[in-house]
C-alpha cells in the first residue's frame, strides 16, 4: 500500500497520536453526596450516601463519619449498595448539632484507590 509523499507526514502524525492514549485508566470520583458537600441541615440525617463515577469494589471501599472531636458517629456498617455498584452508604447514630466530616476511601474496579473528605453541619 503506497501513501502519497505529501500525505505521509500528517498520516504518521495521526497514527502517532494514538498509542499514547491507551490504558489511560481512571479513578472513581465522588459525583454527589447526600447530605451534600458543605451543606447545613436542620434535621440530622439518618445515613450518608456517596455516589461515585465508577463501579466500586465492595471489599475495599469504606466511609466513616466523625464529629468535630474525631469520634466516629456512624454505625460502622459502610457498604456498597448491592443494587447499585456506584453507591456507597452507611447509617448514622442520632447526630447532635455541630460539624461532621465524612471521610471516604474507595477502590474502583480498575484497581485504583481514591480518597477524600468533606464536611456538613447540623443546626
Amino acid at each position, binding site marked *: 500500500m503506497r501513501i502519497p509523499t505529501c500525505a505521509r507526514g500528517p498520516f504518521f502524525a495521526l497514527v502517532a497520536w494514538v498509542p499514547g492514549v491507551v*490504558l489511560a485508566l*481512571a479513578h472513581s470520583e465522588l459525583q454527589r453526596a447526600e447530605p451534600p458537600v458543605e451543606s447545613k441541615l*436542620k434535621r440530622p440525617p439518618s445515613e450518608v450516601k456517596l455516589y461515585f463515577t465508577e463501579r466500586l469494589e465492595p471489599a475495599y471501599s469504606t466511609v466513616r463519619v466523625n464529629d468535630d472531636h474525631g469520634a466516629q458517629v456512624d454505625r460502622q456498617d459502610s457498604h456498597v449498595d448491592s443494587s447499585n455498584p456506584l453507591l456507597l452508604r452507611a447509617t448514622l447514630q442520632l447526630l447532635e448539632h455541630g460539624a461532621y466530616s465524612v471521610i471516604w476511601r474507595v477502590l474502583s474496579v480498575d484497581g485504583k484507590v481514591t480518597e477524600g473528605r468533606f464536611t456538613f453541619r447540623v443546626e
Partner: protein
Amino acid sequence: MTTLLFGAQWVHLAQCVLLTGAFFVLLLAGWPANDFIRRWEQHVLCWARWFAIVALASGAAVLSVQTGLFEGRPEAALEPRAIWYAMLDTRPGFLWMVRHGLLIVLAAFLFLSGDVSARQNWIAARGEAFVLAALALVLIGSSGHLAATSESLWPQAIDMVHLLGAGIWVGGLPPLALLLYGASQNAAAPDPYAVRTMQRFSRAALIAALILAGSGIASAWLLVGGAAGLVGTTHGWLLLAKFAVLVLALLLAAASRAMMPTLSSPTAAKSSATARRMAWFIASEAGLVLVVLGLATAMTMTRPALHDDPVWPWPVRIVHDFLPTVPLLQRLTQLPIAYVLAVSGLTIFAVVFLVRRRPILLFGTLFALVVNGAAIGLQPLIVQAYPTSFVRSPLSYTAGSIAEGMAVYQAHCASCHGTPTPDPAGGWGSAVDLLASETIWRSVGDLFWLITHGRPNLGMAEFGSRLQEAQRWHVINFLRALGMSGFCASGPSRIGAVVKPDYAWLSAPDLTISVGPLTPTSLRDLRGKRMVLLVLYSLPDSRARMTELARQYGTLSVLGVEVVAAPPQSSPEAIAELGQSPPVLFPVVTNGNEEITAAYRMFAPGTAHTEFLIDRQGYIRAIWRSDLTGMPRADVVQAQVERLNGEKSPPPLPDDHVH
C-alpha cells in the same frame, strides 16, 4: 510505593507486548527453510523464555504492591493472606489470576520443547504461543477505565484492540532488528527470507498502526475531554509527551520504509549496508516505543484529565459556549470578518495565479492567510483567562448554596457592586458590572480567580484571605443564578407562561424536599423520572389555587408531574394550615423554605403566588406569577405539561459534575 508499582507495571506490560510481537514475527517469517533463519528463531525463542519469566516475576510484584495500596498499608504487600484476599475478592485480582494462568501455560509451553520439524507441528507450536501471549496482553484492557464505567463489553473492546495493535507493532520490532542485523552480516546479499519477512512486517505494521489510531482516538475522546484537559493536567502533559516521542519513532519507521526498495536491490554490498542501517533504525524505534509504554503506564496512575481540575497555562482562551441571547452571532457577521474574507479571497486568487508553479510558496502563503484570518476573525471569541479558568465548582448548584452566597455577597460585595434590587416588571436592576455581558462570558473558574486575587488595578480587593474557599464558591453559585435571572425576565430568551419547545437553558437549582420529619428527598432524585411543578404559595391569597391543585393532583400525576409546594417560611404547621377538604396529597416543604424562596425568587421577584414548571432534565420551562399573568389556571398548566410531554428530543442534562 507508587513508583514501585509504576516500575513493575511498565516492565510487565513491556514483557507481554514483546512476547506477543516475538511470536507474531516468527509466524510472519514462516517455517524455517535454512540454517540462518533457524538460528535466528532459536535466539528469539531464548529471548521469549526470558520474557515469560520476567513477566511472571513482575506480575507477582504488581499484585503484591497493589495489595499494599488496596489495604492502605505498605506491610500488606508482604502478607500472603492479604495478597490472597486481594486476588480473590476484587475484579482486578480475578483478571490477574486469569492472565497469569495463561502466562504460566505459555511458559510451560516454551520450556518443554517439542519436536517441530514437521510444518504443521511448527505452526501449531508458534500459533499456540502467539494466541496465549496475545490473550494475556489484551486482558490488561479489561481492567481499565473503560471497563470500570460500563457493564457492556464494547468500551473494553476499544482498549483490547488497542493493546493487540501495540503488541503486534511494538513487540515485533526487536526480533526484526535482530533478523536484519544478522542478515547484514552475510558477505553475500541478505537472506531473501529475511527480506521477505521485513516486507510482510511492513504491511502488517501499517494495519496495526491504523488499528491503533482508531482505537486510540476513541479512547482519547472518552477520557481527555477537551483542550483544557490536554494542556492543563498531568495526564494531558503525559499524553503530549507520548505524542512527541511517538512522532520521533514514526519518523524512524518512515525512514526504514523508505529504504525498503534498496533492500532487495541486486547489488550485494548495497543491500547489505541497507539491512544494517535498517536494523539500527528499527532498534532505536523499539527503544523509543518502549519509552512510550512507560509514559502510558504513568498515565494509568494519574487522574484522567476528564476528572481533574486543569491549570490553564495561557492568558487568553477561546469561548465557544454562551447563553443563547448574547448576540454573538450578530457580532460574527460584523464588518471586520466580512472584510477579512473578501480580502483573503482576492489575495488567494492573485497568489494562486502568480505562484502556480511553486507548491511550497503557494501552500505557505495560503497557510499565512488562514492564520491571519483566524486571528482577526476569532477576536470576538478570545477572552481573558486565568489558571483556574477551567476548574469546576466542588459545590453543587443548590438553593442552599445560592442563599448562602447571597448572604456572603450582601456582607462583602454589595458595598462596591451594589445590591441587586428586585424590579417586579423587569427582573433585577443592575449591580455594578455583574449583569454586564462581559461577566456572562466568565466561567466559574474565572470568577473564582477574580474573587480570590481581586483586581488591584480596578480597585477590587482580594478575598482569598477573607473568605473561605467554600464561601467563595457559594458566592459564585449566587452570581450564576443572578446572571441567569437577568435573561429570564425579559428579552428573547424570556421564560414566560408558555413553554417554548426544544428551548431549555435555565437550570433549576437543586433543592431539598423536606416534609415534616420524613426522610428528605431532593429535586435531583426526580430528574429523569417526573416533571415538577414548584409552587411558592402564601395563605390566604393562594387558598383557592391550592384547593384547585389538590383536586387536580391526580390528573397531573398521571401526566407525569410531581407537585411540590413551599410556603415562604419553614413551619411544621404548613400541612395542617392547608386543611383536608380536599386533602392535600403532594409534598409540602416544611424545612429549608427560606433557602428555596431566596433562590427561586431571583427568577420571579416579589411575594406573589408563583409556579415554576421544571422539565425532566431539570430546566425551568415556564413561570406563572399571579401579579403578572394572573393566578395560573388548571387547563393552562396542563396544556404546557402536554407540550413538554410532546417534545421529541430531550435537552442535554445540566452540568453538575462535582468532586
